[in-house]
């Protein structure tokens, strides 16, 4: 077990290193960078003081150096001009040129709000879709199954940003509430209080519904298909032949088996918590990471964009590890397999 973890950690580290290089070089692929663009702009406006500051920043962050050196500095494997190593490895997330603030400050609040929104979505998706899927699978081709299937297809086919716009419009028209944002604008910049949390919870409902709809529909379809496969297996008959009541037999055996693909999916779920739902966040003006990432990529704010992407990559890799460990814990065939074959 310890050997396995050590091996996995090592491969994870290597993977992250490769990803960081890819991220950085792809961000640097378009010609120029945030500061050169800014300097050009400032020069045309003749603002000498600002140009000097930009040029200082440029030297400070080595944007005049070759790309590989910039990369090594960013991750903290190359000394800065002052001779110190100060990069991601040392816990310095870098500087956002656009906001003119450290990346840590820019993404700080947004990062955990993103997690809150998307965790709510994940919980919503599972709580709603699993019972419906079980109902659908155990009563295949019944009226209820057809209705669930129909709604599922509509859910799959509706673009979530469109749904967000529609809901935005009608919420304003009928209830005269603005559902944009994650809390009432009165609380913006306020310290967290009980009222602010209540406002947050109230505002969470619509984004959760909008973002979760597609996922719920997809989950119902997949869960139903998985469960139908398992229901046809011989061990289900064995369970019935034992005299097990139907619900207990269902939950203990086929349902348990059909969960495996979803556990394996946790690896994909974690990064989705951050990078998913960008469009909806834009439409509903949610203060989440998605829109920040989009803006950073557009303006070539390289350290901000790079950090967010690295963070997503880290979540992916950790998510994979977690789902693998969970699978091994839950499925004895994976834990003990190999010798039996």
């Amino acid at each position: 077990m310890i050997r396995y973890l050590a091996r996995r950690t090592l491969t994870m580290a290597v993977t992250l290193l490769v990803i960081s290089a890819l991220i950085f070089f792809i961000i640097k692929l378009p010609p120029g960078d945030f500061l050169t663009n800014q300097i050009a702009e400032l020069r045309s406006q003749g603002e000498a003081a600002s140009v000097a500051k930009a040029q200082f920043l440029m030297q400070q962050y080595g944007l005049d150096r070759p790309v590989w050196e910039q990369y090594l500095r960013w991750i903290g494997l190359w000394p800065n001009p002052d001779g110190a190593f100060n990069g991601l490895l040392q816990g310095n997330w870098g500087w956002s040129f656009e906001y003119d603030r450290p990346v840590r400050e820019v993404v700080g609040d947004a990062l955990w709000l993103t997690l809150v929104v998307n965790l709510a979505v994940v919980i919503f998706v599972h709580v709603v879709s699993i019972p419906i899927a079980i109902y659908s699978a155990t009563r295949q081709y019944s009226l209820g199954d057809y209705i669930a299937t129909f709604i599922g297809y509509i859910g799959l086919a509706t673009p979530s940003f469109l749904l967000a716009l529609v809901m935005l419009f009608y919420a304003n028209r009928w209830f005269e509430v603005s559902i944009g944002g994650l809390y009432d604008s009165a609380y913006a910049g306020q310290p967290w209080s009980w009222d602010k949390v209540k406002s947050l919870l109230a505002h969470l409902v619509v984004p959760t519904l909008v973002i979760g709809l597609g996922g719920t529909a997809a989950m119902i379809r997949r869960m139903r298909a998985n469960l139908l496969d398992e229901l046809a297996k011989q061990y289900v008959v064995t369970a019935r032949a034992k005299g097990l009541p139907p619900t207990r037999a269902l939950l203990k055996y086929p349902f348990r088996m059909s969960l495996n693909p979803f556990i394996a999916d946790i690896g994909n779920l974690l990064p989705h918590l951050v990078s998913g739902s960008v469009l909806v966040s834009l439409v509903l003006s949610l203060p989440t990471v998605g829109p920040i990432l989009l803006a950073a990529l557009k303006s070539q704010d390289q350290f901000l964009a790079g950090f967010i992407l690295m963070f997503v990559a880290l979540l992916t890799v950790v998510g994979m590890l977690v789902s693998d460990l969970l699978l091994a814990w839950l499925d004895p065939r994976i834990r003990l397999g190999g010798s039996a074959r």
Partner: protein
Amino acid sequence: MTAPLLSIRDLTVDFSADTGDFRAVDGLSLDVPAGRTVALVGESGSGKSVTAQAILRILPKAARIGGGRILFTDPRRGRSVDIARLAAESSEMRALRGGRIAMIFQEPMTSLSPLHTVGDQVTEALLLHAAVSREEARRQAVAVFERVGFPDPKRALVTYPFELSGGLRQRAMIAMALITKPDLLVADEPTTALDVTTQAQILDLLRDLQAETGMAMLLITHDLGVVANVADSVAVLYRGRLMEAGSREDVFRRPGHPYLKALMRAVPRFHMQEGERLTPIREVRSAVLARKAGEPHRPDPPGPLLAVRDIAKSYTLRAGWFSGTVRRIDAVKGVSLELWPNRTLGLVGESGCGKTTLSKIVMRAIRPDAGSVTFDDGGGAGPRDVFALKDRELKDFRRAVQFVFQDPFSSLNPRMTVYEILTEPLRIHGVGTPDERYERAKELLDMVGLDTRSLRRYPHAFSGGQRQRLGIARALALKPRVLLCDEPVSALDVSVQAQVLNLLKDLQASLGISYLFVSHNLAVVDYIADTIAVMCRGRIVEEAPKAALFRNPAHPYTRALLAAVPEPDLDHPLDLKLLMSDRFSDPASWPEPFRLVGAETGTMQEISPGHCVRVSGSSLRQAA
């Protein structure tokens, strides 16, 4: 006279399907007296499994009981219940199901949940039906595990099904059924998926348990050999109707119904006359084959077509995901074989003995660690090393050696039509024009006795036997010299098995093909093979022309295998006690001079012309 334990009267079961309704069981009447074994015999689709499901009320959704009674008389309470009238999920029915009436299934592999320990699944049955504590349930489970022959009953509690061999899994199933001490055990093909030796052990176990507990058994099987050995009375089912019923003596000594007689003639037996042919219930007829029989064969090589010399292959296994422990397994070691033109070499052994590895090496699907395989197509170039073939020569070899698979259901792509399936090999090898391929496909269908109009149909429209014939037709498409048949009939009913075996024989006679026929059923191999090689733990232990092997089996393992085949003949009962220990498959516990310790491979010694047996090196030195 007391009422029988189970009394079925005029039972009908109807299925409703998209293609229309049909009656799976039609007016069946049957009695199972307490403490006796009744065998329900029939081919697949005869309604025997549906009857079992009706007794436990676990019929599939599409089926319903149309009429009749299933009277179960609980000997403890002396009161009869009509199971057919109970609601399937009523608490009364659930108390019977698994409690008073238990069932075991054919596939021990899939009948147990892979995610729960054997202990959990066995104690669950007891906890459902008896008011016992978890501790008590575990204690009783250990006792049952011990009774059904688990080597380490305490460990079995925390063992998962996939860690067990097929035989042990079936024992776990039996433990699960028996822990509630049922009055009636319904056994649906309990030994069909097992090796003959394991089958004999399980049958013996069931018989002993029955004697101890006094439970009755309804044994559902298509194997008349099993019936002859364990049943007290027999009921024969055909298309949902009862054809014949009576005591074992009556049914076997004086079969009355023509269907039963036909079924008996279809089973391969030892003691068959030389050249005697099985009579399947439906014989395959082919115009093309009859025409081809007159044509001269291709030129044969002077020596063997395929020669395998001192092949060895070992696998390394990691013990588990998290452990670095590595184990080495010798799948095949020191195996030499020869396959001659127009001949059949039978390869016999239990599962895990290395038969499949060997056949994969022969077709160059895996590379051996040592040894050589040579192939001579009779083209005059002489024998060539199969693993050195390249490009054109390799393609020729691929065409010359084809494979027939065990499972006719998973070996045909359900999304391809028969025409596509049969012509795919031709297209891959670029043989002929589309018109010629179409003609060839029709010819192939005719050769295996299928209607040439079925080219546009999909595999699901065919029965198991027909699918297996499609598989054979596909293997024949490229006019191969050698067919590797890996258990080609073990998934088929006896009547269909006879049909496929006869077809293989006819094809050989007309087309001059050689077969490497891998099977665990000695009677089947005896019927089809010319030479038989017996394999155990990766080694060939005995090889002989079939007459010599059956007349004078020298090796203890061969003798055990022979003794384990149940014959549909009351005069040749199984000697079950002989097979109760696992010792016969352990080379270290064979008697001298056959004893092989550790990695010793021993040497083959010829005891009569063509009849070789493996003996240990030390015994040879002593003799010298």
